[in-house]
């Protein structure tokens, strides 16, 4: 359904996210983080008695909200994802291994740092937490350096054209 454009512009989605952050603090005094919701969902799966139940609903809500925006916008279709990697000629197997190992490192790092892109990057910085600002600066800086190294070594980056569109493998 073309009710939404394929991509809502940042000047709408940015403030919308900001309002959600403030809203959850006003209602529950809690950050709009994601890694903590994974932890609670894991606890629920283990039937731990100290599970925070609403974080599990929140975890499921992210999934449902994403589906809704996709259906109303560019449309749902089953696909692999990671088009830029495919365009660079990476095999599905290599892509799967890279994504899997990277996600393990990411999960471990998020738990060690006490938050992720939403928890530290938006909610922590908005709380004016020095720890969150330091964590955010570190992960953004590291990600830029790692991306630079990755694109230099593999040519992955050459496939993004100057207008931001993705090129085709020559």
């Amino acid at each position, binding site marked *: 359904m073309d009710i939404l454009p394929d991509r809502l*512009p940042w000047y709408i989605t940015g403030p919308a996210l*900001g309002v959600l952050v403030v809203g959850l603090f006003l209602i529950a*005094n809690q*950050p709009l983080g994601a890694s903590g919701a994974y932890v609670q969902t894991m606890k629920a799966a283990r039937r731990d008695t100290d599970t925070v139940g609403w974080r599990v*609903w929140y975890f499921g809500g992210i999934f449902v909200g994403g589906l809704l925006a996709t259906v109303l916008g560019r449309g749902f279709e089953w696909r692999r994802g990671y088009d830029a990697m495919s365009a660079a000629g990476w095999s599905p197997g290599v892509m799967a291994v890279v*994504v899997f190992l990277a996600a393990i490192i990411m999960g471990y790092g*998020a738990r060690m740092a006490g938050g992720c892109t939403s928890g530290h990057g938006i909610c922590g910085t908005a709380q004016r937490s020095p720890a969150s600002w330091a964590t955010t600066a570190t992960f953004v800086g590291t990600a830029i350096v790692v991306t630079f190294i990755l694109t230099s070594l593999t040519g992955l980056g050459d496939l993004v054209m100057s207008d931001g569109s993705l090129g085709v493998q020559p």
Partner: protein
Amino acid sequence: MKNPMNVIGGLFGAGFGFVLAAAQLNEYDTIHKTLRFAEWDVFLLMGLAIGVSLPLLWVLERRGTTTVFGGRLSLSRSRIERHHIVGGALFGTGWALAGTCPAPALAMISSGAMYGTIAVTGLFIGLWLRDRQVERAAVSVPEGDGEHRVLSR
């Protein structure tokens, strides 16, 4: 408190997931292009989200606002420690390679991109590995500023 909070949690999760998918933050290509400065939308989005919430939270905190279910609004501001820097560097490495992070990975699956399931599985394993390591070391780690926190009232 338990039941209304479940519904509220579900709604906030849905709103969050909706924004992430509408902004295409759940696409590897978006994150990859951002990190190599081929587009600025994600940085602008994050900047505006902080730009809206930081001053509002500041004012609400100064006014001593009482939240609906969580008592008086209390923002957490921890000092910088080694684990923030090491964890942040590891997180950034994974973020760059997987091109997604915990919340967008969920919205990636529900947009139909099946490799999102690999990312979410890996995230669960990584989070669990850190928890297990901390448990074995028998140290207690306070909740991070970005995580769910136990409110003492």
